[in-house]
C-alpha cells in the first residue's frame, strides 16, 4: 500500500467481500480496526508535523493538511 487512496479502495473491497459473504465478519472487523490504526497513525503524523511547524511531503498523503479552526 503506497497511498492513502489505496486504503479506501481496500476498504471498499472489504465492504464488497463482507456484503457477498466471501469475508468473515471477524476478519472484516479486524481489518477495519487495522485500517483505523493506519488512519490514526497518519493523523498523529500530521499533528506532529503541525507541532513542529513543518510542512513535510508525506508520500502516503500528497495533499497537505491545514490547522483546525485556522
Amino acid at each position, binding site marked *: 500500500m503506497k497511498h492513502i*487512496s489505496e486504503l479506501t479502495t481496500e*476498504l471498499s473491497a472489504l465492504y464488497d467481500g463482507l456484503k457477498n459473504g466471501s469475508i468473515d465478519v471477524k476478519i472484516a472487523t479486524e481489518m477495519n480496526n487495522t485500517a483505523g490504526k493506519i488512519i490514526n497513525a497518519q493523523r498523529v503524523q*500530521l499533528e506532529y508535523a503541525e507541532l513542529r511547524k513543518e510542512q513535510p511531503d508525506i508520500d502516503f498523503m500528497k495533499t497537505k493538511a491545514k490547522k483546525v479552526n485556522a
Partner: protein
Amino acid sequence: MEETKATRAAYLKAYREANKDKAAAYAKAYREANKDRIGARMKAYNKLYREANKEQIDTWTKEYRKKNKHLIAEQKRAYFLANRDHLKEANKKWEENNKEQRVALNKEWRQTNLEHIKMFRKAYYEQAPDAYLIRKHRCKVIPPQELIEAMRVSLFIKRKLKETK
C-alpha cells in the same frame, strides 16, 4: 399654634441634622447586634410574600428574563470569563474527588438521552460529514481529503459490522 408647629419642626430637623452620625451609628450597632433576628424576620416575611404572590412573581421573573435576555447572557459570559481559571480549577477538583459519581452521572445521562444523542449525531453527520469525522477522530489539523475519505469508508464498514452483529 402654626408658629409653634413650624418651630418644633425646625428644631427637630436641626436636631436630626446635628445627630445624624450618632443616629446612623446607633442604627448600625442595633442592626449588627440584632442581625440574626432581623435576618430571620426578613426571611420569614419574604417567604410569606413569595408564597402569597407566587404567580405574580413568576410572571415578573419570566418577563424580566425575556426582556433582559441579552443582558443576562452578557453577565453570565462576563462572570465566566472573569472566573474562568477558578471555575476550571474547581471543576477539575470536583471531577477528581467525584470520579465515580461523575462516570455514573455521565452514563445515566447518556442512557436517558440515547435517542437524542443518536438523532444529533445523525443530523450532524448529514449536515457536515467532514467536520463530524474530524471531530470524531479528535484531529487537531484538518486532514487531506483522501484521509477523510478513508475515515468515512472505515466508519461505514464499522456501522455495517455493528448491524451484522
